[in-house]
């Protein structure tokens, strides 16, 4: 038995040496994708069904996915030879996004886009989902960042109304066309990426949902703004009333119409029962 074990180990080492240099990059990428899928499924479940028990943290799987993607990317030439380098960058960028490594995510997505472009030009190989995702990824990270910044800003002592309003104009929305706060811009950029999709309703639906997620944060910002007015003792009652009117107007001008449009898009893109439930979910949420 010991001889067999030694032989097997020796053989394994030899095979490992030969094999790891040839196709392990695919297996790493495979594992990265699988872990990312698992993480995303848990992530979505936690977000849409807050009461459900999720067995593990999505972050754990995102981290694993990222690690495998990096391992795969240690052999970029092999990935490139197999035309999956862009995919490896993509999964890495997506993992970085969900691990709050926003700058890295954006940088990686740019690398991915370069590879997709090369594939299209050199090999006429098109990967529309991943390319669109990478194009939208900066905006997606901006939505994340916007949300995190908003909640950080309003955490603890409620800022005064004016301060809150500045934050709103700087980070969420500004009525001037030449000003482009991150959140508003992200929502509209995603819309632009979506408009450039040729088919692929599944991805379009995802982008619509992402826009709705961004719009929800926008709506939250207005709620925070109203709260700040209500609690700002420096404001007179009329000023408070005026502030609440401003918030209501913002809601009416921006949130409501955009929301209705996105929900209509959602219905159009996915005329099936689960889409109706999703639509109702968003409709209830903000």
């Amino acid at each position: 038995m010991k001889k067999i074990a030694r032989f097997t180990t020796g053989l394994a080492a030899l095979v490992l040496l030969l094999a790891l240099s040839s196709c392990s990059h695919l297996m790493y990428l495979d594992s990265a994708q699988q872990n990312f899928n698992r993480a995303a499924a848990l992530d979505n479940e936690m977000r849409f069904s807050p009461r459900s028990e999720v067995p593990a943290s999505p972050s754990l799987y995102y981290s694993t996915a990222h690690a495998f993607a990096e391992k795969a990317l240690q052999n970029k030439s092999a990935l490139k030879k197999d035309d999956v380098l862009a995919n490896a960058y993509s999964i890495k960028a997506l993992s970085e996004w969900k691990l709050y490594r926003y700058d890295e995510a954006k940088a990686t997505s740019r690398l991915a886009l370069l590879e997709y472009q090369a594939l299209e030009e050199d090999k006429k190989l098109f990967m529309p989902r991943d390319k669109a995702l990478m194009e939208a990824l900066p905006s997606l990270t901006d939505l994340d960042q916007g949300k995190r910044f908003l909640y950080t800003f309003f955490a603890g002592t409620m800022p005064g109304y004016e301060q809150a309003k500045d934050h709103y104009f700087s980070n969420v929305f500004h009525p001037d066309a030449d000003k482009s706060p991150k959140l508003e811009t992200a929502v509209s950029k995603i819309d632009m990426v979506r408009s450039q999709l040729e088919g692929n309703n599944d991805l379009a639906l995802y982008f619509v949902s992402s826009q709705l997620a961004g719009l929800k944060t926008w709506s939250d910002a207005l709620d925070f703004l109203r709260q700040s007015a209500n609690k700002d003792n420096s404001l007179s009652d009329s000023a408070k009333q005026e502030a609440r009117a401003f918030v209501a107007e913002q809601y009416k001008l921006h949130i409501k119409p955009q929301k209705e449009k996105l929900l209509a898009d959602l219905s159009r893109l996915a005329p099936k029962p689960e889409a109706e439930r999703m639509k109702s979910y968003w409709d209830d949420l903000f």
Partner: protein
Amino acid sequence: MAVLTSTAAEAVIFSINSAIKLSQNLRRAYAQSLRGRALTLPLPEFDNEVKMLTIDRFFDEHTAYLEGLEPLKALYNKSNGGEDLTSEDKDSYREYYFSFKALERGENGQRLEMSAEDLNAFFKVRQWDKGKAPQSVLQLVAGTLVDIGIDYFCQHPGMLNPESVHGKVMYHFLRAFDEIDFAEQRDFKEAFSARLVPKLFAAAAESVADLAPDLAGDEKVQSLIHATAKGIATDIYRRAETLDAGGQNEAVHWGQMVLRSMVGHAGQYVVQSPQSLFGTNQGVSKIIESTGVILLDAILDDNSDQIVFKNALSPDTLDRLTRATLDVVAQHPAVLHGGRGIKEIIAGVAGSVKDKSILERGFLPELTRVVLEQSAGHLDLLWRETPTGAEHLLVSAVKQVMGTLAAQTTDGKPWKPALTNTQMLSIVEELVDEVVQNPAWILDEVQGKPVLSEMLDATFASMRSLPKDARLQGEVLRSILKQNVEITLLQRSVLDKIKWGTEQEEKAILSKALEMVFTFVFPKDARPEIGRLQLLAELLEYVTQTLLRQHPDEKGLVLLDLILFKGGVDFSRGFDKKLTDEILNSVSAALAAHPELLVKGRLLQSIISDLAQTVQDSGIRQPGLLPELIRITLENVASHLEAVADEHAGQPKHILVLAIGQVLRAISQPSEDGRWVPKLSNDQIQEIVRMAVAVVLENPQWVRGGDKLFQLIDAVICAMEKLPDFVAVTYTLLRDLIEIALEAVERQGQLLNDIKTQTGETIIRLRFALEELFAILSEAETAEELAWYLSQRQILNILMEYFLTYIVTIQATEDNLKTAVSQMKAAVATWRNDTSKTLEEIFGKLGQQSA
């Protein structure tokens, strides 16, 4: 992939896995699968709590909801007025909100939540839009295939080598999926491929591993696997689009099963197939494709008027069915096309078996297999045209067999022969084989029905006479059917129908014969005998192989009735074929000479029964005696049909039976002093019986109301006891004396009157005379002399006749008897002194003296 617990093991497996992926084709496919893998996408972060602003705006637009709901209105005013809401207030406010939102949607309930399944369906995004993927089926599922392949190839490293025979086989298998046309149903095929192809791959990999290398290396085998995989996959794609998820799973499952079975039998098929089949590349792939598809169709097609084939299938039965199908295809490639092919045979068998209890036993595939196996080599001969279309004779046979089995009822309740699956199948196989050998079973008709059907009906109809608890074992039933097949083949007239006795219903002769046997072996009013099954088997064999072969008509039934008549032939010690044969030969000969006896069944039964009892009572155990006595009796009874007599207030018996009884009693009765009993052969007994029968027919009063015949023979035998010991008593002497006595008594009936001897004993005169005569003769000086006297039959006759006549004429006083004896002595003395004198001279002289 297997879960590994050892780091070393992981390394080994991982290394091997990696090495496996060196295969260029798999590596490309793997990469392609990674590019095309569907990703579940996470949304940007958002807070899933409904804010007060959202609720306020909702009620702004739905103020009607506030009316009449003061708590809600208070909350609304509070929130809109800029007041802080407590945590409880917020919860309550949200509850109102969700309730009214649900109401607007026409629902009841609280906040909507999305299930994991909904989310998975919503956020799982494919790389390419439907119909735009640049992949074949194989490429689409390559990733999954690789996973499976890795697991499998880890255990079969040789498979990895694309140059190995097994590697080539798998290559051919995989190539089949590259050839599937995606032009139609593209979207569906893409989605469904991930479920179908890996399953088929797994099935193929398992089966290929079991192929012998020489077979796997055969290009024809590879071709078969390629074509089969393609055919099955294409068929399942076609079906699955209209099926629900359960139906699709089922189709995939059976696709796997059929593929596995087809690959498993590939070698056999190739060996069997004619060279010409594989010589035409165009035809072969279609033929093979069709074979697998036909099986799959048979399994999955759900015609309401047919049977759901799959419910009856197991891996084993499918395997056998596949083998049978390939057998037929190998020999008749054309069966896959046109309207007279395997598809029609399978459908025909399925349609012919409707009985639920048979179907529940999973019998259908085996029936189909039997028909297919038997069809091989004879297919062209087994189809016939009917007004309703082409009909396969073996399908008809199965239909008739199963129909007959299913139709059996007793007392309105289903009656089914107690058959195991193996037994039932053996029966079907044997019958189907018969039809192959002799299609006339189906083609010829009796009473408007195929011969087979009639034979089965006759067989099973007879079984209704069995008591409920007398269930026949399968082997017995099988044996009966086999014998019935043989007799029907030889004597078709056993299926002719007759009315038997007083029965109203017409029955086939075969059926009635079996019924008689069953009734005899399983009497309703008696406890079953031990060994009855043995008796049954022997009787049935005799009836079908002997009796009905010689007499396939009413006469056969008459004869059977005679031997089975209760109280007749004793079968308590088992069936005696020789005896039965002899009896039947005797009866048969008598019936041939006197056909009028056929209508006297009851009388014949009575005669045979009484004779059997008579022989039994006599204690004479000599084989062959009874049949001879029956023959003698029947030979003479025809002209004396009504010659019966009441015997001591018992059952009336024929006078010949009474006569024979008295003869047998006389010759078998022990002597009084145990000195002498005639030991007679059958022939000798028959001779005496014939003499007695002839006399009794002329003088029936001898046996009617008395036993004169017995007394006569008994007197002869008793008299012979008086002979000296040194005299060798021969049968000839006995026969002669009986003959003389019969003639004498016939002339002088008074010889049977009593007489008192000098010793005071009362005996009949015949005996007295014979004893005295023997005593006189015994005075001879030597034994030789006495023997000489006794051998002089003619002289003795005259002496006896004279003496008996004299005895009859005189008064039986002591003096007269002394005188008679003295005269006889004188005559004998005269004769002894001068044997040259004629008897006439002696008796003339004696007469003168007497006078």
